[in-house]
């Protein structure tokens, strides 16, 4: 009998809610066959089986919260017990028995001397008997949490006072000194880390960011209400956006692009793209334009590393595209958008959007974006102020194009104008650069030939 456990689901995903079970006891399943659907913080995913055989027992049910490593079901191997046992055994073997590498020869001195071995010609150095084992002293594991047992955190009274004043539990601060001693800098650094991880850490630590801290009034006083559980996706979105909104100093700039020429080209080639399996949309064309734009303006494809005090410039161009689904906002990513032509992008976008709506989008497909695009033009509106999709630093919002009188060549002309809203992180991007960037995008829209000319 073999167990199937929840595999690694993706970065920072440790658990999910079972939303559907896709097999029944007695079913014969194959490897890679989806057996259970999980809603995680970031997406709903179908988890494929890593084992094959006849389902003997299903150990989870709809609504369960399951963690990575939890047993989902057990199967009997299709050809009887004996081979199954054999099949299971070798699989377990490498994990169970680590290769018997010969232990390195240990010097007579028990503890590792920090000094390098002396050269043969140098004076003989007697290794100091190091009593304070550095490994033990290393503060990798946060010291005692609340369990008051054992000695308190090794921090001086002044450090303890500082921690208390700024609201840090000194007992969980990793100390950088000998014996894990905690310095004032350690406390400050820890506080900084907490601040920058709020939101990205998700419900566990960052929950405070969105949790209403004030009591709510009794809404029923004024009429009937309906209460629905806050879904994981909505909650994750809320925390993510709250973090982005509170930490990024946002500026939004607006502009209009004459989209007439682009629209004409779109109509001209949409049949061709449809044959390839895509929709030639303004979104697809804008993805390509954005990809080229961030190559010209690398600070728009960057992230801030607060901990290290650095700006990370990405040498790849991945563009996220916000997709509206019935479960909330999802942002699949077009990878290496700068190396793909508009037709390829249109086809890929079509597939991703379908996947998003069918809850088939993998976490992988939603991570790694460098800049995002949010097109609400299909619904309407003039301008809006999109929130930067942290850790990115810019997002382009697109509203509905309208026909407007434009003064051109000495007379009024009816032109189709597309409203654009660019939000950006003012910590990395200056206003003038943002305007230059947006002008570049506008010009690329108005003169599509620019893409092939300089893109």
């Amino acid at each position: 009998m073999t167990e199937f456990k929840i595999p690694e689901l993706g970065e920072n995903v440790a658990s999910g809610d079972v939303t559907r079970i896709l097999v029944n006891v007695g079913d014969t399943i194959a490897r890679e066959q989806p057996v259970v659907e999980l809603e995680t913080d970031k997406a709903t995913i179908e988890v494929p089986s890593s084992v094959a055989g006849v389902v003997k027992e299903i150990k989870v049910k709809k609504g369960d919260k399951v963690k990575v490593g939890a047993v989902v079901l057990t199967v009997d191997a299709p050809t009887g017990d004996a081979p199954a046992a054999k099949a299971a055994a070798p699989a377990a073997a490498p994990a169970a028995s680590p290769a018997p590498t010969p232990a390195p020869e240990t010097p007579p001195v028990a503890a590792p001397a920090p000094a390098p071995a002396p050269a043969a010609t140098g004076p003989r150095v007697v290794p100091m008997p190091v009593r304070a084992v550095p490994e033990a002293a290393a503060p990798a594991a946060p010291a005692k949490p609340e369990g008051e047992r054992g000695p308190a955190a090794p921090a001086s009274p002044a450090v303890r006072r500082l921690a208390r004043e700024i609201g840090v539990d000194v007992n969980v601060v990793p100390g950088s000194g000998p014996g894990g001693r905690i310095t004032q800098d350690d406390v400050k650094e820890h506080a900084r880390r907490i601040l920058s991880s709020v939101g990205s850490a998700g419900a566990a630590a960052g929950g405070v960011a969105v949790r209403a801290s004030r009591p709510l009034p009794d809404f029923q006083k004024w009429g009937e209400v309906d209460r629905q559980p806050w879904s994981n996706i909505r909650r994750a979105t809320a925390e993510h956006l709250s973090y982005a909104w509170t930490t990024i100093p946002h500026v939004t700039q607006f502009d209009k692009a004459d989209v007439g020429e682009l629209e004409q080209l779109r109509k001209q080639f949409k049949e061709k793209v449809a044959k390839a399996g895509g929709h030639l949309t303004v979104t697809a064309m804008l993805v390509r334009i954005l990809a080229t734009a961030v190559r010209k303006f690398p600070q728009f494809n960057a992230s801030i590393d607060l901990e290290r005090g650095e700006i990370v410039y990405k040498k790849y161009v991945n563009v996220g595209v916000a997709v509206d689904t019935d479960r909330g906002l999802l942002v699949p990513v077009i990878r290496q958008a700068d190396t793909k032509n508009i037709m390829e992008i249109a086809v890929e976008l079509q597939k991703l959007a379908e996947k998003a709506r069918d809850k088939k989008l993998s976490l992988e497909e939603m991570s790694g974006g460098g800049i995002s695009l949010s097109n609400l033009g299909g619904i309407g509106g003039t301008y809006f102020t999109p929130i930067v999709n942290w850790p990115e630093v810019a997002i382009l919002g697109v509203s509905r194009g309208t026909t407007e009188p434009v003064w051109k060549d000495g007379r009024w002309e009816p032109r189709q104008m597309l409203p654009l809203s660019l939000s950006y992180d003012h910590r990395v991007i200056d206003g003038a650069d943002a305007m230059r960037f947006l002008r570049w995008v506008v010009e690329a829209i108005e003169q599509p030939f620019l893409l092939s000319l300089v893109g």
Partner: protein
Amino acid sequence: MAESVQVAVLGAGPGGYAAAFYAADLGMQVALIDEEKNPGGVCLYRGCIPSKALLHVAKVIDEAKHADNWGVSFGEPSIDVDKLRSYKQGVVDKLTAGVGSVARLRKVKFVQGRATLTGPNSLKVAGAGGETELQFEHLILATGSSPTRIPSLSIESDRMMDSTSGLELPDVPKSLLVVGGGYIGLELGSVYATLGSKVSVVEMTPGLLPGADRDLVGVLEKRLKKLFSAIMLNTKVVKVVAEGKGIRVTFEGDVAEKEQVFDRVLVAVGRRPNSKIPGLETTGVKVDAKGFIETDPQRRTAERTIFAIGDVAGEPMLAHKASHEARVAVEAIAGHKAVFEPQAIPAVVFTDPEIAWCGLTESQAQAEGIEVEVAKFPWGALSRAITVDRPEGLTKLVLEPKTGRVLGVGIAGSGAGELIAEGALAIEMGATAEDMKLVIHPHPTLSESVMESAEVFFGQSTHVYKPKRKT
């Protein structure tokens, strides 16, 4: 119209006056209330200070006697008890007057009299000049403690003393029974024994200084056995009767002579918090089963406006704990997030030799199942101790085995009380044995014992040869 202040402090001992002064330094209007003429409390008037003056004299007498061994003879001391008493009183007067003048300089309003609380923001004080009403935003209760009275030992007789009357030094009795082998009994017993009394100590438990580290007590006990005429352990006093010649005491326990007569009896069986404060019931302050006022880590009581510090707020009943709590409470009143969270509160027994400790003790570690390693340095190998002919002594470190972090320090020996401060600093700073051994200590001093005990942990003490353990 009642006067109003931001902070009123009830009780002017080392907790109360420290609180009042600090609050004044932070710019608050402060009133300090006490029944004595000057601030000082039990510590200055009837405790730490007079006892230390007398213990100093005792030490000089003892050293003079010792000098015979070094070829210097002073002869038998002649003791003028009245002059000795006035020396002691002079010390007390000087210090209390000093604290009083510092209070005036700080513009702390000192109110002499007996206070009655009238609510969470008011009290009245009955003094010589009538009644004073006082409104306060915050009140700090620092009313201290008093000697525990045992009903069966409370008989009407001049020959019965407690620590307060014992410090008055009425005379040097021929024989003195000290009831209680705690630090107060041993300190006062040492004074009287050195002045010439035959001192017997009776203790209910199996050892002197219950709760203190046995290694340290062992060092002291050796010497006390010579100084005192009897140490009766596992023994209870069941009856005392005043007779013409003295007090007849009946014992029960490990003692041969069940009835003995003493010129005087000193009862020193502990102290009780002074929490029966008049009018306390007009506030929300809560008192626990042992009589201590309940406080949170900021020393705030169940009544938001009232704090409690020092002996009345809990063990250990030590002046330096009280003055530290005073600062915490005042900072809390000033809006800081200060809490009382010491890692080490040093305790000192001012006998000769002294014993002192702070932080975790070996027995406490055992009881709580905390794994520790203990490094001991005997003073027999300490040059300074030999030069002053006091080689009996021991410095021990209680260490976290993996990191060598100093968790506790215990010292027995002449001057241990001064040496323990380094231990407290080490514990509070999270120092390791390695830190302690790498700090240069002056030679030749007793402080080297701290450094060398840290070296013992590494098996490298200069003056103690300890073969390496086989591994």
